[in-house]
């Protein structure tokens, strides 16, 4: 807009580049823990006096993430203006790499939870999740060797990262909660890939779950593939 244009005229290209680099750096640091970055925080901590040219700076940061890192900076939750980084490469670098990449066991845990939610139509009562996890020797009431406090990981960490939504079911006594996919899961997780592995596990054609198959392949949500 013209306001941005006027703001840019008061700055040297080097100043704008420097500010953009700081924004990129800040987002990379925040992404270490996969916590979404709030626009308000970004402006307050980093952009500061450059807020009039903020749209231009975020546009440039997006371009750098795409062109240099192969990552996509996306806005989730447009109401609260939050950003996350998503991989832009078709297959993750670690998956097919000839050099040994460490794996994160929480990916497995997350996969189980997201799969159950997806296969059950998008919303699942929390008991259903805990029961499934218990069968896998993961008990929310006990310290787990690999995950520590599992209840905390699932209902706090995964929620803060926006992989899961954990909400109270209205009018239940005693209080009950349910799980849904969070915004990050919508952006990051491929339903088609989940079904693919589901089929492999059950030795069954993925198309036999017709409802889910249709959802995965018409892209009724924003996830790719």
């Amino acid at each position, binding site marked *: 807009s013209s306001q941005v244009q006027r703001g840019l005229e008061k700055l040297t290209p080097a100043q704008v580049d420097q500010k953009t680099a700081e924004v990129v750096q800040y987002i990379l640091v925040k992404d*270490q823990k996969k916590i979404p970055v709030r626009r308000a925080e970004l402006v307050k901590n980093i952009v500061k006096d450059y807020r009039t040219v903020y749209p231009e700076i975020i546009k440039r940061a997006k371009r750098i993430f795409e062109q240099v*890192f192969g990552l996509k900076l996306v806005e989730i939750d447009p109401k609260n203006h939050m950003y996350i980084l998503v991989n832009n490469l078709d297959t993750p670098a670690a998956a097919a790499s000839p050099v040994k990449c460490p*794996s994160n066991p929480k990916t*497995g845990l997350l996969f189980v939870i997201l799969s159950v939610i997806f296969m059950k139509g998008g919303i699942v009562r929390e008991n259903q999740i805990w*029961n499934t996890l218990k*069968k896998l020797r993961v008990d929310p009431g006990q310290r787990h060797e*690999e995950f520590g406090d599992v209840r905390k990981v699932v209902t706090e960490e995964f929620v803060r990262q926006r992989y899961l939504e954990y909400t109270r079911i209205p009018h239940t006594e005693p209080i009950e909660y349910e799980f849904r996919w969070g915004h990050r899961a919508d952006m990051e997780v491929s339903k088609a890939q989940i079904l693919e592995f589901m089929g492999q*596990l059950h030795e069954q054609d993925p198309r*036999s*779950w017709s409802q889910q198959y249709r959802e995965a392949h018409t892209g009724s949500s924003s996830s790719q593939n």
Partner: protein
Amino acid sequence: GKEKASQLFSEGCAFDPTAFAEHLLSFMGLNRLEEEEENDELQNGGGVDGFLPKDAWHRLARRTECCFKTAPTFHYMMGSFYAEPPPPKQKSD
């Protein structure tokens, strides 16, 4: 999805979380100790028999990585603290 709930399971096969968990256990390399029926009680969530190998969850993670388009993260040591020379060795208290 508005009509999702009513449409769900009206066609195609149903999803059974118990069967799913069983398949996952096999995939993760569950070491089934002996006869299952004996110990398989609901109170224990049916999870008493057999044990999972140490790398069970890593195994699952490696297989399911391709479902996630997660951005890799950048970690460093230099720059995570103030670059000040170590203080001259003296104790404040």
